[in-house]
């Protein structure tokens, strides 16, 4: 370790670290726009300038290697003056449109301006105009007037997603971020740029004007889009900001998804499928138990299901790859002892979807295949085995292998019309349950319930335990 001091505070740094990295790790907040731990060094924003003992000029701390006994000052008058000057340059042509900007409340430009900027503007010039809210493909909007040209998004598409879809054209004060005009904007990871943008320049077309961010709070969850099991944050309305006069559905809405940093699993990124998770979950829910296609009470449905299983000559359960490890354990210790257990992939690759790449996206489009196969042998349902009663756990598209069987289904979503399900018991979808998935590399990843379970919706583990009794 290398010892240095920042503002008279002793700090230990690793060899090869920069002053900014060491400072941030030690809880000294040196402001920065362009530096991002996962991206190459740009050194262009100049807001992280610090004073190094013995050097005449201020140095950008993001490009300053630590050295033994280095003395760094980040709060002297000189440093603060330079920081203020840089912030003044940044806000010179930045519109004062925080009132209608989705980024307000979690915007670095705003935060630093309040914290370090000068109250009064000295510019007498008109602000420069650049393209505003220009669509980048179907998902993003780019506002060049809000952009501070930190190049994080450009470096992201160059170094992380490697789509090279964004660049900075023109020079001097005319410089602006842009996409190609002659090629379609395509990047399966594009929405990550919204989060890394330190200003409101890049915003989501989906989230646009949906909510002020300070009404929202994140809940730790896991993307079920593929076997990577990326950590995500699902944003819901804060309890004290629940709406009363408007639709109460707004209080049970996921407003947006953002990546949650998880070095073991997904680093700082997720793919666009993850950002779209609420949309994927917006299918018609199974909210009431059905017996023989007719609404029934929970106890009626459970009773009927129990009778079917108990009376069956050769019962089987098809396990869901969306089940959590906790649910799988409950099942393994109870009903699984009494029935034949089959495994399956609930979801398969959809058209227009990235099958697999060398970054995050995995070909298995289910979150917990690993957890399932840790507990149960990989074993596809055998229609010829003569099962008379089958419990289908999870969603199902193709019911044909189960023709002739009496079906009990535990599912969060309504089965397709014509599905011959004798007993349907609604169970909680991802956002209404807590648990753990194990990703394809064997890493456990925990998710928490974003909302309470809907009134008649059941806990799958409990249902399976009851069926075994």
């Amino acid at each position, binding site marked *: 370790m290398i010892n240095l001091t920042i503002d008279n505070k002793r700090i230990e740094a690793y060899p090869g670290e920069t002053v900014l990295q060491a400072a941030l790790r030690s809880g000294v907040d040196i402001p920065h726009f362009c530096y991002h731990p996962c991206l190459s060094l740009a*050194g262009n*924003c100049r807001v992280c300038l610090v004073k190094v003992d013995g050097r005449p000029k201020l140095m950008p701390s993001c490009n300053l*290697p630590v050295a033994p006994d280095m003395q760094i000052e980040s709060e002297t008058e000189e440093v603060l003056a330079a920081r203020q*000057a840089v912030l003044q*340059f940044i806000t010179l*042509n930045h519109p004062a449109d925080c009132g209608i900007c989705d980024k307000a409340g979690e915007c670095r430009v705003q935060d630093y301006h309040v914290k370090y900027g000068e109250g009064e503007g000295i510019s*007498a010039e008109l602000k420069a105009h650049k393209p505003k809210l220009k669509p980048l493909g179907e998902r993003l909007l780019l506002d060049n007037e809000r952009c501070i040209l930190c190049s994080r998004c450009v470096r992201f598409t160059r170094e992380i997603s490697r789509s090279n879809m964004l660049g900075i054209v023109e*020079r*001097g*004060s005319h410089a602006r971020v842009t996409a190609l005009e002659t090629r379609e904007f395509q990047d399966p990871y594009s929405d990550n740029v919204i989060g890394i943008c330190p200003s409101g320049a890049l915003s989501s077309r989906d989230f646009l004007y949906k909510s002020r961010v300070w009404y929202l709070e994140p809940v730790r969850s896991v993307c079920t889009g593929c076997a990577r099991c990326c950590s995500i944050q699902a944003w819901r309305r804060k309890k004290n900001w629940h709406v009363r006069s408007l639709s109460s559905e707004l209080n049970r809405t996921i407003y947006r998804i953002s990546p949650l940093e998880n070095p073991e699993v997904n680093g700082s990124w997720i793919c666009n499928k993850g950002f779209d998770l609420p949309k994927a979950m917006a299918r018609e829910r199974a909210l009431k138990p059905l017996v023989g296609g007719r609404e029934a009470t929970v106890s009626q449905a459970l009773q009927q299901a129990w009778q079917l299983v108990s009376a069956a000559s050769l019962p089987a359960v098809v396990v869901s790859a969306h089940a959590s490890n906790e649910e799988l354990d409950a099942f393994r210790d109870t009903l699984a002892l009494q029935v034949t257990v089959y495994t399956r992939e609930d979801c398969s690759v959809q058209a227009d979807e990235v099958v697999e790449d060398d970054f995050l996206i995995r070909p298995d489009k289910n979150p917990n295949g690993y957890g399932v196969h840790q507990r149960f042998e990989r074993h596809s349902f055998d229609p010829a085995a003569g099962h008379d009663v089958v419990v289908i756990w999870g969603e199902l598209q193709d019911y044909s292998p189960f023709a002739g069987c009496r079906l009990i289904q535990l599912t969060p979503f309504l089965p397709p019309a014509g599905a011959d399900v004798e007993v349907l018991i609604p169970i909680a979808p991802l956002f209404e349950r807590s648990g753990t998935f194990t990703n394809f590399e064997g890493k456990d990843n925990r998710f928490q319930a974003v909302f309470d379970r809907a009134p008649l919706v059941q806990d799958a583990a409990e249902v399976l335990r009851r069926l075994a009794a």
Partner: protein
Amino acid sequence: MKAANVFFNFEITGESHTLDAYRNRGGYGALQKALCSLQPIDVQNEVTASGLRGRGGAGFPTGMKWSFVDKMSPVVYLCCNADEGEPGTFKDRWIFEHSPHQLIEGVLLAAYALQVRHAFIYIRGEFDLSWRRLKEALAEARSAGLMGEHILGSRFSCDIIAHRGGGAYVCGEESSLISSLEGFKGYPRNKPPFPAVKGLYQSPTVVNNVETLSTVPWIIAHGAAAYKEMGTEKNSGTRLFGISGHVRKPGLFERPVGYPMKKFIYEDAGGIEGGKKLKAVIPGGSSTPLLLPEEIENLTMDAESVQAAGSMLGSGGTIVIAEGTCMVRLLHVLTRFYAHESCGQCTPCREGTSWMDKIVARIAAGRGQSGDLDSLERITRGIMGNTVCALGDAAAMPVAGFLRKFRHEFEFFIEHGCSMYGGRLEI
């Protein structure tokens, strides 16, 4: 002070730029000597001993720059910086047009010292005759066995690739030149790492100015001691000094370093146009702070003296401004230039240069406001020392200098909405 000529040592004719002419005046003798009898390190030592300093503007000792390069690195690159663009400077052009082989020999000597296989000459895109003369000279050198495999039958092989710029002042900054040569926008790079450690395509790279490299053959031919005899103690040799603006005989002169500025203006350049009085001198290209007549009274043209006077010798381009010139409109010419040439990468320069230009343009249009001058000074302070490369300082220094020395002209313009000198630039 002894003075030989490193450059102006032949008569310019329609043929004097050719290989034959160059050889007839002893050209490529230094290369022959080096390849036959000197080790690469000897060449470097000789240049170090000569005290040669970079002629591009910063004045860094050339031999020391070479010594930073890890010679064991599998690849070392040499780039000749021929992106001459500092307003007031027109010396490299002369070398290309009249003595291109002198540069090629210099490049080859440096390449030999640094063990470079591929050297690049990054030449300004606008240059026309220079470009053609360089291409011709390279072709001549290649067919004479002076370039390519086994130069002059030795074990040393080197190719020189001439690369044309695309019109960007900032590409004269060495790391920007490297970005440009790699096929990108000419964004300057953060240092560290310095080019000598990680430059072109991440390999150790030396970037030297045209005049610097063209001086090397003379040093190898005549010896470091002979070179050191010229110039001043800390700044040896001669330099190509350009003089332009309001003088009777503008042009390029080779003079020993330490030559008196007044003599340069009043004797070599024939004095001020129309016998007018001198108003100010920009001593080393447009980025350097201007000096008043009393400040050049005993000034000599070497880095130390000019620095002591509060400016810099830079690229050695003197711009002379006569009495009666409107300094407000003249500053606008410069702010417009720097705003146009800011690469757009780092915040202070990108925003600051165009902001300064807008304010100066407004003042020069008669719409100045009280407080504008304070704002300008503040902006210069916000830029200076805070940018990725030196262009920020280059843009801010003239503004600071003009305001410091001619503030009353700006105040007059703001108060009356018109120039003290009828807005004249030409006299």
